[in-house]
């Protein structure tokens, strides 16, 4: 993501999706991240931090969409497998990336959760469509819309719903805790 992405965000890409929860005609800034060959957009206001993907420790008896836990700047953060939540399968088809994998830490209230991104393209402006009907019935509720960006289909993630869905599925209701070094 760069100035070009910012400029592109200003063009207000075509959006199709359900009813906008962010209010009437509010323009939001999305961070574009790629996972395999799928592209997602996350509101930058929900993103706490972007860190280098470190070692992820598997957690016994954790559900399949929980990859494990990792320490990000001294905090123990749950790492969610976004592809399993979105598609129900373990992995998405891979694509080469110039950078190392990233951990995108999202926050909703006191809850933190990290998703793994192969690469982060940048940020773009997004104009949600008010009162738009969902185009597909099987789309998860944390994807609140989709739009085209440079010929790619970008799914807009609702970070609080994503965190809530992951926490609900995992039965985790407590927020992330500080890890003593």
């Amino acid at each position, binding site marked *: 993501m760069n100035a070009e992405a910012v400029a592109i965000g200003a063009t207000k890409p075509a959006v199709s999706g359900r009813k906008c929860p962010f209010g009437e005609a509010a323009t939001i800034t999305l*961070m574009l991240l790629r996972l395999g060959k799928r592209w997602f957009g996350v509101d*930058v206001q929900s993103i706490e931090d*972007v860190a*280098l993907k470190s070692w992820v420790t598997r957690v016994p008896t954790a559900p399949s969409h929980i990859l494990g836990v990792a320490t990000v700047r001294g905090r123990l953060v749950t790492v969610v497998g976004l592809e399993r939540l979105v598609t129900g399968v373990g992995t998405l088809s891979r694509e080469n990336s110039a*950078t*190392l994998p*990233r951990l995108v830490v999202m926050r909703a209230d006191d809850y933190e959760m990290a998703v793994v991104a192969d690469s982060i393209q*940048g940020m773009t402006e997004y104009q949600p469509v008010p009162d738009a009907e969902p185009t597909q019935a099987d789309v998860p509720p944390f994807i609140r819309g989709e739009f085209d960006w440079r010929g790619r289909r970008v799914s807009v993630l609702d970070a609080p719903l994503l965190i809530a869905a992951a926490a609900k599925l995992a039965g985790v209701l407590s927020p992330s805790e500080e890890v003593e070094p």
Partner: protein
Amino acid sequence: MRTLGLRTKLVVTFTGLFLAFTLVFAWYLIERQRTIASQALETRAKGLSSILAKLIAPAVDLDLDRSQAENSLAAIKGHKDLIYVAVLKADGSVYLRHSEMHLSSGSELLENSDTTRVEQRGELLHVLEPIRSNGKDIGTLAAGFSRQSIEREIQTSTRTVVGFSAAILVIGFLVAWVFSGTIARPMLELAKRLTRLSQDLAGLARSQETSSSQQVSTIDETRGTMEVMLASAQQIAESSSVVLGNAERSVTGNRDVAHRILELNNHAERVAEILAAIMQVADRTDLLALNAALEGTKAGEAGRGFTLVAAEMRRLAESVMESVAGIRRLMNDMRLASQSAVQAGQEGVSLSEETTRSARDIALVTQQQRKATEQVGRSMDDMAATVSEAMSSTRQTAATAQDLVHAALHLDRLVGSSSRVQPSADRADHAGHEGSASMGQGAGESRAR
């Protein structure tokens, strides 16, 4: 000219000897028989004359009647050899005369003799025997004896001797025929065999001469080929020396190249490490810029410039990472290429070492080949000398064989008949001429060589 054979000569010789012996033997026997018969007739004539003289002596002394005197001679009348008897008195008158046949005048010997005298006249043997009475010559008894009886005996003996001699001659002829056959037949066979052998020997000598000439020619060709091979071996040795030097330099160069490539590979590894560090720094820079852009965006309008700077920094970091990725690809390609170059260099070193070994082997083999070729050349010289000596010996053998052919032909002519010898002689002469011509040609070729 017709030439008699050995057997004929032997037969003629032995028969001649037998004939001469027989003739001498016959002549001797006949003459001996004649002498004995003549002596016997003379003895008999003397004895008979003496008896008659003693018988007639009284009649003459007493001058008796002739009839009485003839009675005294009656005892001897009818003697087969007595031809005439005459008694002469001392005065020379014929006292008594008796003849068995009519004799011509002068055929009788009417003379007085005081001793017994025997005289051969014509076909008669005349005996004059003095007639004595009381120690006094009173007359002479003349008697003539015929030689017909002894001539008949001599003729009979002569026929016997001639027949016996003829038998001996025939026997001698047969013996000579058989004996000459016994001698001449093996000699004839030996002469024929010697002729064939000498002809074969001449042919063999001629063939050997031809073979020797061919051997000399072949040796010359082989010597020429050996010289060419020697020159080629020397050229190969020189070329192999050059190849050996080039191969050794190639080995050194390939080893140097392999060493340099290894150094280059080490440098590339070092560059890769540096690139990894750059990549890591760029990645961290990208991450920092991303977080800065995130914070700037969160800050709203106040952080917009900060967001732009962060985005620019991120773009630079991504550009660095893309460049590093490109350099990595290039380095990877370079590493693969260097690995291939190292492998090719090692193969080149192996090939060069193998080429060096092959060149050394070639040089060694060429040197051995050159020595072997020189040895073969010396052997060719020795062989040529040996063949020349063999040719000289062959020429001598051919000359000896030719002399032997002539000797055999001469012996064959001597032993065999001329009608059988002549074709062999022609063949021998022909073979001898061919042998001489071939030998002359071979000698000429040898001299030319």
